[in-house]
């Protein structure tokens, strides 16, 4: 129907058929038909054909506009206004139809592009961090927030840094608690990270706030002991540091680590390099629902002998030091029951720790 109309306009009202008098004869009815034809144009191509026929360079409205000049001035004006209005209307109608048709075409295309959004995506896998690393990172983050900075020391340590300077003289019974791997006469695998305290204090003047983290070794292997394990050690040396500060600081570290407030207790203990010394227990909920005291760290006030070894005046400065076993904390935090899982490197186990 629209095609027929379009055809009629196209051949019935060609410019040649028009006399000079007909110029103004583009009638309202023809205009209505044209608007209908535009509105019903089925395709972009048909619409374009209508535009060329009527509004193109040689289109009929264009032709009539060109002939306005032949009219007397009085008519010219009114005829011109009419024709321009009609032309504008047709132009707008075409633009509108064009937009409609484009929308239809787009809708059609989109409809054909149905995707099964439930299919899995590509390259979704990510790796995993070792739970020991995650635990260490968490602690270093907490300690950094408390103003502590990282320090380092060797894993193959000498006897002086690992023992003597820390107030473990030769044959000291506390040495028997450190089942030591020896490398040669003077060297051993460090049994704790505390030797880093000594190395740091040899090179830094108080105030000092440092932590040292890493692997330590003891020649002991069973269900609950690994010959290699990890520790993090903190040291704070300043004037006016007291045991109350030690308690306050460690309560903060423990609460931040477990992200909750836990009952904790300080229990007298013994480390040759601190005095007074303490171990800290947390009341930890066991699988059976009971809370039991569980040791999580050792700490104390730096022993004056340690300060003497590194040339710090113990009358002026006090220090506090603490050390945490990473495996124990990781086991608590992640509910790991078997120590050996840490060194098994089973991808299925590791995958859980992102």
């Amino acid at each position: 129907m629209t095609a027929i109309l379009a055809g009629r306009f196209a051949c019935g009202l060609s410019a040649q058929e028009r006399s000079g008098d007909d110029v103004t004869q583009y009638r309202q009815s023809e205009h209505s038909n044209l608007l209908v034809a535009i509105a019903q144009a089925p395709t972009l191509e048909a619409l374009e054909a209508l535009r060329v026929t009527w509004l193109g360079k040689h289109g009929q409205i264009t032709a009539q506009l060109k002939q306005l000049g032949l009219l007397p001035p009085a008519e010219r004006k009114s005829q011109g206004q009419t024709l321009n209005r009609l032309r504008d209307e047709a132009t707008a109608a075409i633009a509108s139809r064009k937009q409609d048709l484009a929308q239809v075409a787009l809708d059609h295309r989109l409809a054909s592009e149905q995707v099964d959004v439930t299919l899995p995506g590509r390259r979704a896998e990510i790796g995993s961090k070792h739970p020991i690393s995650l635990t260490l990172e968490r602690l270093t983050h907490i300690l950094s927030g408390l103003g502590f900075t990282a320090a380092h020391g060797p894993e193959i340590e000498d006897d002086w840094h690992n023992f003597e300077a820390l107030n473990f003289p030769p044959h000291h019974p506390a040495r028997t608690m450190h089942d030591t791997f020896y490398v040669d006469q003077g060297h051993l695998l460090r049994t704790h990270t505390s030797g880093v305290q000594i190395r740091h204090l040899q090179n830094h003047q108080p105030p000092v706030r440092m932590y040292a983290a890493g692997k330590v070794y003891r020649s002991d292997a069973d269900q609950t002991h690994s010959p290699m394990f990890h520790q993090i050690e903190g040291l704070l040396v300043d004037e006016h540091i007291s045991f109350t500060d030690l308690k306050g600081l460690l309560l903060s570290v423990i609460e931040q680590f477990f992200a909750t407030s836990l009952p904790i207790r300080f229990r007298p203990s013994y480390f040759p390099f601190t005095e007074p010394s303490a171990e800290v227990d947390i009341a930890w909920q066991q699988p059976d629902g009971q809370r039991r005291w569980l040791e999580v760290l050792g700490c104390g006030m730096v022993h004056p002998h340690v300060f003497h070894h590194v040339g710090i005046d113990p009358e002026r400065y006090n220090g506090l030091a603490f050390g945490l076993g990473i495996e124990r904390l990781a086991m608590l935090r992640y509910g790991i029951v078997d120590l050996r899982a840490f060194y098994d490197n089973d991808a299925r186990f590791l995958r859980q720790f992102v």
Partner: protein
Amino acid sequence: MKFTENWLRQHVSIAEDHQGLLARLTAIGLEVEDVQHWPACGPQVIVAQIIRQTAHPTASRLRLCQVAIGQGKTLQVVTGADNARPGLRVPCAQVGARLASGLVQSRAIKEVPSAGVLCSRADLGLEPHSSGLMELADDAPVGQPLDDYLGLPDAGITISLTPNRADCLSIRGLASDVAAACQGQLRPVAVPTVPIRHSDQLAVQLQVPDTAIRYCGRLVVGVCAQRRSPDWIQERLRRCGIAPVSLIVDITQYVMLEVGQPMHAYDARLLQGPLGVRQARPGERLHLLNDRQVTLADQVLVVTDADRPIALAGIMGDWTTRVTAATQDVFLEAAYFAPTAIAGRARRYGLQTDASYRFERGVDPQLPQQAMAYATQLLLEIAGGKAGPVLELTQIKQPIALPPAIRLRADRLTSLLGIAIAPERVQRILVDLGMRVQPQDFGWVVTPPSRRFDVHGEEDLIEEVARIWGYDQIPLSTVRVSGRGAACEQPRLGDDVLIRQHLVSRQFQECIHYSFLDKARLSQWGFDLAPVHLVNPLSAELAVMRPSLLPGLLASVQQNLARQAEQIRFFECGRVFCLSAEDAQRPRETEQLAAIVCGNAVALQWGEPTRSVDFFDLKGDLESIAAFCGQAFSCRASATPPPWAHPRCTAQIQCEGRTCGWIGQLHPSLLAAYDIRLPTFALTLQTELVMRQPMKAAQTPSRFPVVRRDISILVSQTCRWEAIARTIWQVAGPLLAELKLFDRYCGPGVQSGQVSFAIGFILKDNTRTLIDQDVEQAVTTVIAALAQEHGAVIRSSTPQ
């Protein structure tokens, strides 16, 4: 240290109940590890004696016993115990008693009435398992409630003692600490006076002048060694975890537990004399009390008889001179040996004895005489005999002195603890701990008792005060720090949280392996570094410190393939060890990062084809690490690739002109040794050489469009891409912004021995829009240079 609560309470009177005592023990640093309970039996369980025994009329395994239960009364009881016999005194549970097995009722056993139960130790809850009736001493008072006779109920308390608290390895030592902690009353114990009934002595010679020794010996003649130890001694030993052996041995053990002095008894008739204490001579043999033969080395003290070793001093006596039931004359030894002379020696011979445990930690040097008097008294009371004089030798190279007087400043106490404790309380605590305290203007002068040789200085006294005062009574405070902390340094790459995160984002899993390796395994790798060996490894599999992270990672690849893993991407950061090339004595350790990949390149997925991982997958990871560090790594094929690597698919990684690692395929022979059939690729980086570069000033991107021009060239297959790229960068001029190799081809259409590279040039100028002429000139120059330097033939050149 395990002790019984009743024994402790006999020495100290405190207000605390059982739970209160446990809490106080832990609070003062004597951490309670375990508590064992021996319940009361109740008044119906009494000491009884079997008077008559007859066979059961129908059951051959059962016996009918008539037992006396005191006050002239008897009961008929049926028992199946093999050791039931007339005259034996046993615990008898009468009707109404509650045993581990249930309520005792009057009932017929195989038609014979039984009015009670004769009890084993297990019946009474004294042990989890036991066989036969509990045999009581012949003088056990018939009719006495067993609870009174055996001291029930009781609790066995195991405490974990720190190595400084040797003084608490005895009931007396514990009682003193508990008295202070609970403000209780320590019961005084007088040293008994032993009547000297003969004057014989054995001569003793100390032959180690450089070692502090105090040696007390006494000859007791005419003892009845075959007598049974009294029940109260046996029971206390058992509850403290020591099995009774024989009367004389049990007495020495009992004294050790009560006062803390290890003792030894020799059969004096088997000694020739004189006795001596000297260093062992290498090769000497000793048949130990535990019936083991040991060959002695030097650096261990022995007690000798006529120069023949008869004991590892302070550790264990020998078999030949041990006391037996036949012993008539006993030589008792109570000695002090300097801890340094004993420490570690027992372990050297695979021993750990109660004596060595105490001597290693230190025994009060004032104790031998007291212990000798106490042990003699017990021996005379129970086994009879006549005591001779005590021979005492003290050899004091390092004086066995009393602990020194120590100045304790009140203000130091306050500043270290952060709280003020009333001076009267401080003084009371120290006095309760057995210290002599003299108040001064500054505080106190304190002299510890000889058993507290762990107390040397002011800080020790402060700890003693804090410990008894109670750590939980000390408040918390927030640290106030002066000055500034150290500036935050750039973290080392190995410690860098971000590099781990980066690798995790690239689908790597982090591993942690032991730092020790199997020596045999290691030899398969052919590292050219001298490895660091442990002197005392746990096993041959854990004997060498790793010179590389790769052996650990490859072992994990193997294990995970065995667990059906299809795609493995592992990394590890850690130290590696070798002997320094310059100084072979000095172990050297460096930080390494290593990664290993194997199996599928991408996880099995519907939208992407699966393929095996290859060298360039891992090289992409390496380049991403380089980009992350703000560095450019270059990979060079090496004429001498490491033995573990595929010779043609391995490169040295260089960073700022230094070799910092390797990347490559693992050698098929090595993989075969690990039973891995899939191609496996690995990289190592010495992270200390790859510092993360801080970003330089940021650049503003050009406003002008870039121009891309592609060329395709043919070169010989021996021509390396890096050489081509270098030539291009050298001649292309400043307009070249980027070079993209987007195809590499050899095959049909390309002459054999040749390879085609398709290269995209990205050209730009920050100040203007480029014109064709600029591009043409750059590309022409490049083509000419490639032709000249690499014999490159242009296949096509297309503007994009």
